[in-house]
């Protein structure tokens, strides 16, 4: 497993400050990164270190000010938003800190969504199977507001794997959960990750969580200050 699925070269993100003086804020400064298929990588750092921005750029949700990002051989910076969206649908899955379920859809419908968008034959069957796997077979007809935080995150994980992604991006997946629930969610995430042989890119400031990944990248003020492999 040495093929890089994600390659970032000299990524920078600079935004103009709205103060009229033409000042700029550097969020990312020259990030170089390679992530191999099947690898799990944690990006850690203090608040404001730029880890969430990096995640957005690596996943093709945002574009860098300069530098290049290749996802599964596709050069994201050369693509239009239209093409990036299509690529996301094919290659990428997400789990967010704030769950990001659609409030107007039931748990089952939320999980069915990627399959429906892809035009799958039986999105309902696949989604039901995934919900069973995350332990929510009894809650399929419930709306997000009727579910606990942990349950919502499990639905979000089921939805993420319903996309059958090559790369799964997770942004502080336990940030809104208590320790016990968070631990269970992490177990579930890694279990599914292994089962589906997905590449995992995880942003967190939870060192315990980071330590369950293959590699930990530490960011500070928009630069990579340390990279370490985690012993099995």
């Amino acid at each position: 497993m040495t093929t890089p699925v994600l390659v970032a070269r000299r990524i920078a993100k600079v935004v103009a400050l709205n103060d009229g003086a033409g000042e700029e804020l550097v969020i990312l400064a020259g990030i170089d990164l390679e992530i191999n298929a099947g690898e799990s990588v944690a990006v850690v750092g203090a608040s404001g270190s730029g880890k969430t921005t990096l995640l957005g750029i690596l996943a093709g949700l945002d574009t860098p000010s300069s530098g290049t990002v290749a996802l599964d051989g596709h050069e994201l910076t050369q693509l239009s938003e239209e093409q990036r969206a299509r690529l996301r649908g094919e290659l990428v899955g997400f789990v967010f800190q704030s769950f990001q379920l659609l409030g107007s859809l039931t748990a089952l419908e939320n999980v069915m969504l990627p399959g429906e968008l892809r035009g799958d034959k039986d999105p309902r069957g696949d989604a039901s199977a995934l919900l069973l796997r995350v332990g929510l077979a009894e809650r399929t007809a419930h709306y997000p507001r009727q579910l606990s935080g942990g349950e919502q995150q499990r639905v979000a994980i089921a939805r993420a794997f319903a996309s059958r992604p090559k790369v799964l991006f997770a942004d502080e997946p336990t940030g809104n959960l208590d320790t016990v629930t968070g631990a269970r969610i992490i177990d579930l995430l890694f279990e599914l990750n292994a089962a589906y042989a997905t590449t995992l890119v995880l942003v967190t400031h939870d060192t315990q969580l980071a330590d369950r990944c293959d590699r930990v990248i530490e960011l500070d003020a928009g630069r990579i200050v340390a990279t370490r492999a985690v012993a099995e």
Partner: protein
Amino acid sequence: MTTMRFSLVLRFLMRDWRAGELRLLVSAVLLAVGTVTGISLFVDRLTSALLSESATYLAADRLVASTHSIPDEFSEAAARLGLETTRTMTFPSMVFAGDRNQLVSVKAVGDGYPLRGVLRIAATPFAPGVVIDELPPAGEVWLDSRLFPALGIVVGDIVTVGVAQLRVGRVLSGEPDRGGSFFDFGPRLLMRIVDVPRTEVVRPGSRISYRLLVAGSGEALDQLYRELESQLGADYRWMGIRDSSASIGSALERAQAFLLLGGMLAVLLAGVAVALAAQRYARRHYDHVAILKTLGVTPAEIQWGYLALLAVIGGVSTVIGLLLGGVLHLLIVAALSAYMPLDLPLPGYKPLLVGAVSGCVCLAAFGLPPVMGLKSISPMRVIRRDLADAGVSRWLTYGCAALGTLGLLLWYTSSWRLTVWSVAGVGGVSILFGALAHLLLRAGRRVGMQAGNGWRLALAGLARRRGDSVAQILIFGLAIMLLLIMILLRTALLDEWQAQMPAGAPNHFLMNVAPEQVKPLQEMVNGRVERMGELYPMTRGRVVAVNGVATKTWEATRREPDSGDPSLDSERNLSWTADLPANNTIEAGDWWSTNLSEPAVSLEESYAGTAGIKIGDMMEFDIGGLPVNARVASIRRVEWDSMAPNFFILFSPGALNDVPATYMTSFYLSLQQKAFLNELLAAFPTVTVIEVDQVMAQIQSIVSRVTQAVQLILGLVLVAGCLVLIASIQASGDERLREHALLRALGASRRLVRGALGAEFALLGLFAGGIAAFGAEATVFALNQQVFELSSRLHPWVWLAGPALGAAIVCGIGLWSTRALVASPPMLVLRELG
């Protein structure tokens, strides 16, 4: 995945619907289509009913009137165009029964009369009438109730008209085209036109009004007019309902203008509701779109999907809205059937088209821009919620709305002038209201610092969301302003209509009083009638020359070619008096003193103006073959509305000493005193009574129906306005509710939260109402000046009612539409709104 499949769009739509996301938008479109369709259907049916009912006042759709017999070519041309025709002749004549006689107004009618409206007969004199679908057969006459006691006859007796003996067949209690012409006053005798030659009363020089009645399709009538136009000349007058009675015509025109205005306001309000609902829908879908984008949905697919979604919403809502509009108008008709015993004709297809197009245009112009902005929502929003709402540019949103409104208004009114005025008015008012609302909020904030808990919270909230608050004050203000304008205009129109017929104004004219009857008649009526006017001598004559120039030549150079007024040499009523009549004022020259060196005349100002005659001009009259010369001494302004005898031409006393004259006067009789007329006519059988009250009753019945229609439209617009308020409160409600849920989570009591919400809505309403009062006064002032040509004054009650109404309505609706969410646990609210 190239395009999002339609079935998927439908599935999303169903899920949105089930989750209640679409209710507001769909209700707004339903409101737009339903209101517009309902109003259009009702207006369409009412207008055609009013027009056809008004046509019954002519007994035809159009007619040709003349003092000369109407040529056969006219009726032949009408027949060729497939139009129905019939003829009538109206003339005064004496009718005899035994030793009694009475001056009557004879109406001789041809087959098919009346072409519009109905004849009514009564079983006995003065009994209520019933409709009859027959005409008197040849040799028979039908008489007004009053003629039976006056002539001392019963049904079946024989009366003599001219030299013909005719049988009295029935009691005539009503005819559609009663009143109007000078010849047409006095008790009626209805007979067949075929009997006229037998009477031998029609001779050269007889005063007869000939009419050719025409009825049929509007196109054929217009075509007939084009064919006859060149042959009509000065001798024949082409008349429709608008010409036959100025009061009925202007009442109809105002009613249509008013209904149109009502329809336009409803459309504008519905558009605002659609815009608010679409904005709320779009805002609630920002996250939705961001998530869809992370799942691989492209911007183009987002755009296509929402477009398809809107199209489905538009299509379904339009169909349901049309049905609702139909039901709405049926409800209106049913509710008003007791007050509006009009036989409403079936509507055309146009109201349905108007409703459907209005709904689609409203949705496209007001609803599309915010929803179309969704495609630019950044997917990064899933990570950073604070990312600015991309949305569409405000210019595009407002531009589309303005364009849509403009298009719809232009379509409804078919008038650039009305459209531009309306748009400019609303635009100007919005800018002005925005500025005023801004000022009020700033002032409120300052005052609020000293206020109690709830009020301080409310004012702080309003000031914090200043942009939203200004917009809401603007919308509420506009809605309340429209309501106030409606009420003010309704009052103004009613007042004016009533002013046209002042209470207690003389309602009877006495004419044809012989000089020797003047004294005994005065003695008899003294104390029996009210407001008895002066007795004016009256004769008829024509002007033959001015300053020695023959009238034809004189007019050729001075008269406007199409003035429509009778020409100078047509026969007119002439009178003389020593004193200036009560309702007259001198505009130029001097009223005569007692010792005049030569005969003098005083002319009414418009008559003098049209004829181009000035003070000092010498006029030559032909009065029954007698030449009379008189110099113009003064020009008078006459109050024609006074209902007293008024004259275009008044002579100085003694000028017409040698001319035979009869006298006329006016007085007031209430309905209960009406029987006195029989007594009067029995004593003075040759005197003619004109019952103006009957003509007035006809006009008043039209006016009252028009007023009811106007009130109804007012009600509908009010409902539309209230629904806009609900939409607006809901659209802005999320943020407000989140704050109050937070407050409650922090320990504020439900009572405090409810109080703060109530105070906030009340303040919004108060500000909006104050601005509305200002706007309504200004608009009504402008409308009165420019459109309705009425005088204007300030309405103090509006300045109290506006703010009070605003606070009450906004507070009531606001608390009502937020009641469920205030009652639900704060955690649920916070979770739902994220």
